[in-house]
């Protein structure tokens, strides 16, 4: 625990988030949308964990559940030593400054009736008892940090472009000196030339302030740029969790492989020579996931066992975790699931 390698700032253990379905005239509880169905991972201090997957795979739900924007169904989310999932209301309010979020749509996440200074200063009103002058100083400091001109302090969000609005969102997230920021598709709504500006800003801030990011995105090439480790999600579960370079060089899980092969290479020569794995069909509904492995309905390498037994996420190479029966030929593959789970928790991302 003491000075033996990097410390996990965020530990997620068997997180589940089910949204109930009510139907019939009595609005009876008839099922659940299993948006997140038992995932575990750690994020080390100062690290960026990329979370990728297609729409509907539950990646945004993970981000929001981590910050307790939802009350989770079960599991533990330990951020900086405290289990966020079980904190009482007042304790949670005190905890909020350490964890913040940058939202996807900068248009929708800024109040159009508030000036820029009020938007950035709002967390300060809520969590500090500073004087107005001190708050204004801090607001200016934040605006400098994210590259907004101080003259803009009294303008409204509609006067800014998408990239600048995203900077406002980032300044607001930074206001209380958080340790951990969830970036939920922060660049998805921006143009290519603006995306690079925002990503560079996030990287600079990380270096300067020692921030830890969970970077949620569907843009695999941008995740390759910014993340240290990457978790690939499919239908509410993690398919593969690996350090960035080995994952992009040789993805192990068939879904990760297909996903990476589907990315369009911005180079016509390389694009012509690439072998794409075209998955057939669509993602099944998370309200009614397939029996066995989630991916068995579309997997090109499916075999009988996949349709009956859910694969557990286990370490197959140093630091690489895969949930797939193809990698099960290790000694004592089946058997004590409890032991393999404990193993998994200890080793994820932590070099001990």
């Amino acid at each position, binding site marked *: 625990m003491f000075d033996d390698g990097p410390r996990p700032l965020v530990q997620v253990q068997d997180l589940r988030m089910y949204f109930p379905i009510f139907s019939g005239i009595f609005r009876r509880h008839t099922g659940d949308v299993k948006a997140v169905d038992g995932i575990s991972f750690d994020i080390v201090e100062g690290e960026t964990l990329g979370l990728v997957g297609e729409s509907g795979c539950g990646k945004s739900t993970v981000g929001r559940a981590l910050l307790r924007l939802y009350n989770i169904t079960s599991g533990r989310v330990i951020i900086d030593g405290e289990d966020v999932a079980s904190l009482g209301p007042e304790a949670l309010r005190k905890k909020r400054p350490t964890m913040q979020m940058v939202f996807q749509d900068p248009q929708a996440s800024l109040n159009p009736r508030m000036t820029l200074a009020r938007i950035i200063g709002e967390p300060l009103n809520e969590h500090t008892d500073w004087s107005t002058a001190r708050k204004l100083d801090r607001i200016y400091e934040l605006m400098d940090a994210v590259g907004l001109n101080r003259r803009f302090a009294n303008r409204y969000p509609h006067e800014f472009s998408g990239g600048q609005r995203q900077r406002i969102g980032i300044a607001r997230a930074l206001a209380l000196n958080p340790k951990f920021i969830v970036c939920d598709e922060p660049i998805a709504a921006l143009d290519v030339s603006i995306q690079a500006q925002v990503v560079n800003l996030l990287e600079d801030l990380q270096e300067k302030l020692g921030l830890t990011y969970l970077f949620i995105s569907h843009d695999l090439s941008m995740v390759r740029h910014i993340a240290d480790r990457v978790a690939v999600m499919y239908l509410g579960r993690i398919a593969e969790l690996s350090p960035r370079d080995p994952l992009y060089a040789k993805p192990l899980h068939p879904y990760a492989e297909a996903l990476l092969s589907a990315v*369009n*290479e*911005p180079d016509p020569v390389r694009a012509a020579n690439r072998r794409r794995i075209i998955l057939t069909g669509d993602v099944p509904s998370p309200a009614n996931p397939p029996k066995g492995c989630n991916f068995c309905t579309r997997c090109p390498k499916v075999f009988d066992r996949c349709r009956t037994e859910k694969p557990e996420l286990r370490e197959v190479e140093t630091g690489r975790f895969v949930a797939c029966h193809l990698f099960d030929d290790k000694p004592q593959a089946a058997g004590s699931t409890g032991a393999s789970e404990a193993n998994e928790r200890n080793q994820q991302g932590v070099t001990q």
Partner: protein
Amino acid sequence: MPDRAASVLDVRGLKTVFRTRGGEVHAVNSVSFHLEKGELLGVVGESGSGKSVTMMSLIGLLPSPPADVRAGEVLLDGRDILKIPPQELRRVRGARIGFVFQDPMTSLNPVFTLGDQIMEPLIEHMGMTKAQAASRAVELLELVGIPDARRRLKSYPHQFSGGMRQRVMIAIALACDPDVLIADEPTTALDVTIQAQILELVKSLRQKLGMAIIWITHDLGVIAGIADRVMVMYGGHIVEQAPVRELFANPQHPYTRALLKTIPAISGPREGRLEVIEGQPPILMAAPEACPFRARCEYRHDRCDRENPARRASTA
């Protein structure tokens, strides 16, 4: 001047202006290009660069007012479709030129079955009977890879996923066997694995049907994989036009060069830091008299402020 003998579509000096309360916005400025038979022309640019407006103004899809196509001619097989009366233009749209829109969620009518929507252009343009149209609709759905097509004709759009709906949109656009298919960001709203399916579909359809396609996108990765020739737009201008390999290997315009550098690669060495284009794209509130890219260009000099560079063939 390229040889335009084989052109299906020839656009010359197209200008579109939007009248707004704040003044006129010059969205398309003297855009000229041509499309050859069987070719796939990629159009790239950031939002607001005028790529969609160009394509919509050339088939008269923009509401006027506020839009106003000020000048230019659009020759479809030698006939200027900007000057023909609205009724005749209706016969061109859908029959000769098919259009696939970006958002498959909102461009299908939710209260009609898919069968009705695919059969509509067939009955309207080809004069088919309902029974003929229905069997053609089944063929079309099979062509775009929708299984169990005959039963699916009775389904409503909400019963389909995004990728399936985009397939249906493509089927509708292809219904009358058009000469030109204009696809406006057809894969942007889709997930990567579904996007890959649609791209494969379009590649195979091109081989089978051989129509010319204009493919609008902001994703250079998509363009690299699919286009024959690329047109880069910025601030309502075409800033560069080149065959796809040439454009990626040897970009000429400073904007194209900068744009290609800002996107991180999925393979090869990883950059330490992304290159950026500082500043914002312009909003053109007046007719352009200088280069639209000058404010963000690293090679800016006096002449850039004085005149708008003419489009000329470069021999690099």
